[in-house]
């Protein structure tokens, strides 16, 4: 039996195909103005990689911000539940999940059964979300993916007076004009990002093990700053792209709903 999970986020759309034992294929594409188009494209990509026909998919669960727009979904489940499901499957010892997406940040506490105990979320303010890093990368004229490596080369982080993306942007421009190196600015940006996420983590209260998911998990400079700030080791998901955790959780739910064990 093949099932699918589809996670429509604000910036990317993800699909995971699962057969009850392993991930058969996955895809990550940019979300489309019409979320349905993105969902189809991501599904087609994943099916092509797994060389399976779309029609052989028994069940699909949609999740994420655009979950109601997954045209081929049999059911929808919240991203909190799907992230929890996915992370617990990958790491049964996980008790705190920090998920940083393109437009939000969630901190989820879970119990030993892998059920959600409590969660806090920020989707009101761009600071502490992927959007913050995106805006900063644009000001620094570097690709978002380069920001992390750039920050690691910095040795003297600049300080940003306020967490606010708009004010930070003005600060970064000011530092660039003063001739401060992009590396030191990038390091300051990652520190500010970690600080903002840290505030949310502390609201949720932290239990070990802690793992990080979502696109920003790939920015290891931010993760390292967050570890320093929180004084804990954060598990990096290596066997699966951390951005796929929600889609994986959706696929796991799909498998259960389709009668799989």
């Amino acid at each position, binding site marked *: 039996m093949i099932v699918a999970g589809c996670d429509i986020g604000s910036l990317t759309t993800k699909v995971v195909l699962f057969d009850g034992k392993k991930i058969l294929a996955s895809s990550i594409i940019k979300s489309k*103005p019409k979320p349905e188009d993105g969902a189809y494209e991501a599904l087609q990509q994943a099916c092509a990689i797994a060389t399976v026909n779309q029609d052989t998919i028994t069940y699909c669960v949609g999740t994420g911000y655009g979950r109601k727009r997954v045209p081929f979904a049999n059911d929808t489940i919240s991203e909190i539940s799907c992230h929890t499901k996915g992370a617990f499957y990958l790491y049964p010892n996980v008790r705190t999940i920090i998920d940083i997406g393109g*437009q939000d940040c969630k901190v989820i506490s879970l119990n030993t059964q892998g059920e959600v105990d409590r969660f806090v979320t920020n989707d*009101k*303010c*761009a600071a502490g979300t992927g959007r913050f890093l995106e805006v900063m990368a644009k000001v620094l004229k570097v690709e978002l993916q380069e920001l992390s490596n750039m920050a690691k080369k910095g040795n003297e982080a600049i300080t940003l007076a*306020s967490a*606010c*993306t*708009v*004010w930070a942007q003005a600060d970064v421009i000011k530092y660039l004009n003063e001739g401060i190196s992009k590396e030191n600015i990038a390091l300051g940006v990652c520190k500010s990002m970690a600080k903002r996420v840290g505030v949310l983590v502390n609201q949720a209260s932290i239990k070990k093990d802690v793992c990080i998911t979502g696109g920003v998990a790939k920015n290891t400079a931010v993760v390292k700053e967050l570890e320093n700030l929180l004084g804990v080791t954060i598990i990096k998901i290596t066997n699966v792209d951390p951005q796929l955790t929600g889609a994986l959780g959706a696929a796991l739910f799909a498998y259960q709903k389709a009668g799989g064990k």
Partner: protein
Amino acid sequence: MIVAGCDIGSTTAKAVILDDSTIIATILLPVEGSPKDAALLLLSSVQEKTGIQPSQIEAWCGTGYGQKNIPYASTVESEIVCHAKGVQFIDPDVRTIIDIGGQDAKVCRIDAYGNVQRYVYNDKCASGTGRFLEITADVLEVPITELATLDAKGVKEVTLSNQCVVFAETEVISLLNSGEDMGNIVKGLHRALASRVASLALSIGVEEKIAFTGGVAHNAGMVGALERVLKTKLVVHEYCQMMGALGAALIAQERIKNRVAS
């Protein structure tokens, strides 16, 4: 006795020149370089803009974000105190001041003598400041001075689901793409900023009369939005952007008098 107050804000520099209790001139300049550059430019424009010789000015009092960078100011005072003084001079019945500047917003409660009783301040989040309108006007590709005109053409307030400037920017783009009327969007933006500032104001409570000051108060659409949210009329003076500088000038005057008296 001629005295002057100088308010170096984040986006504009203002000066008010006072001859006893008469405002004889005001100057408003954009801040382009450093606060010090702006302060010096302001001084050098006094004669040209007002016909007053800078040497005739007995004392300057500085205020605002750049108050420490005014080389010719003999005294300085905080923005809040200056605003309170300035507003009380214009309308002694005012008990609450709502000031929205380019990079901050403040709400200040004053007594009948213009003394500050309580105040709250936001400079941490851009969404409750003039910058919110600046950035969203940019997305709409209209000059910020056109916002009031567009607001007047709107027939309904579009509800924005985001407060954060960064998220609102994206929302405005998708509203435009979906064909929403510009006037309605602008009305929605004014409403959003008004709600944000009103909640700041309500955190310390408001008492009438309420004066609306700062550069944003020149925007009639914003005045209307704030009046609707607070359900009351606001006092908006033609010198609404000059209250800090006016208060500073009054303080310069007071301090000279005190010096003479002692």
